[in-house]
């Protein structure tokens, strides 16, 4: 895992106000044939970003120079569908460090946290407000403080406390890695294997 540490992020946002964006949209299956984790950012939202003839679709937000930033502000139910972690790699590789929505799919949430990409759930009304603010003024900045678990829209001072599993928070803050943690538990795991009962 990329052992990036992450504590405070202040950034402008890229708005993607669609509901039910699934991982097939984030990265279409035909780009999954790689054997490394790098380079998926080029194909992020591929079929929305490029026209059928391979040119940039100027109407799509990633091709609009007005919108830049490390925070992707998505619509409700983001990341459903396939478990492909490539979706998270693509978002991360493109340069995003946080995704904001009012609702995420489970596997996407896990995959994000396992890759140092922070999924932040905010109330639907606030999400809609934020989308509108960004549309009106692309320079709108947000601030994310992991230690305090706060998400703030800087110009309006709207601020909420977001939920994050304390273990995962620690991992993000310290750049810790789940696999190192699990490897340190080998004795307990072997012990479990010896004493395993059928069900509890």
């Amino acid at each position, binding site marked *: *895992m990329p052992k990036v540490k992450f504590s405070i992020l202040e950034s402008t946002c890229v708005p993607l*106000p*669609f*509901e*039910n964006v*699934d991982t*097939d*949209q984030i990265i*279409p*299956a*035909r780009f*999954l*044939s*790689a*054997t*490394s*984790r790098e380079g998926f950012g080029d194909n992020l939202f591929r*079929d929305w970003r490029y026209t*059928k003839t391979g040119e940039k679709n100027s109407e799509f937000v990633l091709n609009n120079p007005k919108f830049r930033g490390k925070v992707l502000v998505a*619509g*409700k*139910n983001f990341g*459903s*569908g*396939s*478990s*492909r*972690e*490539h979706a*998270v790699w693509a978002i991360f590789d493109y340069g995003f460090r946080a995704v904001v929505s009012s*609702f*995420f*799919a*489970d*596997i996407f949430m*896990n*995959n994000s946290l*396992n*890759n140092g990409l922070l999924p932040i759930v905010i109330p639907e009304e606030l999400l*809609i407000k934020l*989308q509108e603010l960004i549309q009106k003024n692309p320079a709108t900045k947000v601030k994310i403080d992991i230690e305090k678990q706060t998400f703030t829209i800087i110009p309006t001072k709207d601020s909420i406390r977001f939920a994050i*599993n*304390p*273990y*995962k928070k620690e991992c993000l803050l310290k750049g810790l890695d*789940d*696999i190192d*943690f*699990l*490897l340190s*538990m*080998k004795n*307990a*795991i072997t012990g*479990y*294997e010896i004493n*395993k009962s*059928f*069900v*509890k």
Partner: protein
Amino acid sequence: MKPKTLFDKIWDGHVVRSIEDGPDVLYIDLHYIHEVTSPQAFNGLKERGIQVFRPGKTFATADHNIPTKDQHLQIRDELSRTQVERLSENCRKHGIELFGLNHPKNGIVHVIGPELGYTLPGMTIVCGDSHTSTHGAFGTIAFGIGTSEVEMVLATQCILQPKPKKMRITINGNLHKGVTSKDIIMYIISEISTGGATGYFVEYCGSVIKSLSMEARMTICNMSIEMGARGGLIAPDETTFDYMKQLPSLPGIADLESSVNQWKKLKSDPDASFDRELEFDASSINPMITYGTNPGMGMAIDESIPIAENKNKEASSSYLKSLDYMGFRPGMKLLGHAIDYVFIGSCTNGRIEDFRAFAQIIRGRKKAANVTALIVPGSKKVEEQMAAEGLIEIYINAGFKVRQPGCSSCLAMNDDKIPEGKYAVSTSNRNFEGRQGPGARTILASPLTAAAAAITGRISDPREFMNEENNLKL
């Protein structure tokens, strides 16, 4: 003792350690891998300089990107070939059993796991594929994971997982003729939406579930993920045990009788409580189709596309964008709408029962001239059975071609793409934009509905093609 759900019993029995305020360290009994989501996990092991911890608990297949024609030849697409070769190398290096391309037991991971007798009641099962939920039909906790988690399992046979909430979905009542397990699950998803079960693990109960075959139960559990659930499971019963008993081999079982006695304990206690309970009446379910670009956008085949209520701007623009992609309008009826392709296969409906059902309607008829059909068995074993039962002949006489096993058009990583703008009635599980190829328009349906569409070249009600004899339960 506090009453427990089946899910609790299996989960709690697999917790190596609970981290305070954190996820559980969950022991994994069985791990399936495939070519697309595993290479980066093996790279991770290499970087750490470690071997697979329990190679005997991981099994591999190549299914996602393989061709379904001329499988004996070299894979033409270079990247796909590299992935498949990399899988073989990794399996060889780490001592993992591989049912790769051209292996007599090759097939889609969720089809071969059960039919080879690896999936057993009471297990925890994971795979880097969201439809791992399929195995829940056997009374297992089975769910899809990301590649980082694949690496965790390879390295330690464990993953870190927060315990999901529990939902029970009960389906009682009488099923109408022509209504299959695919229709049941599509109906539930259309009722509760694609995010309706997010955060939950579902147990399916009720007289209707009890009456279903193992194949049909797998279809139901398979699509649990399409309503956002982490997975779905069904308590094992005599149907399960009979299925296990007829399998040619059960590699992990020394004494089947005593295993069956253990498996009989796998059920929720009568007073166990669930975080959410839903109940459906089977008699309100009709053959289903989807009209939009997620599996929640489904309706009875003879209904009209709903006029979206304008909850908010975002929701209604997403709804219209979706219908626009499909070339449909709110309020439109889809019966009689011309289609171009039919795809029968995938881990949802690529088992022998599905092909039998398809054949029942096709037998003695011809496919419509405007239809191209891809008939793709879920595994080599299914392909063999199809041949042995004369199904392939029925298909050929009707004008279809039968391909070799694989995921194929379900996600179109290989050449089996539906061309842009074309309509495909598909027995797979996802109708996302571009899922079956860039610009492809997918209409999800049961094998019976797909058969009716193949014959007429239009979206058609399968009940018109059924008589007393072919009232199949699937």
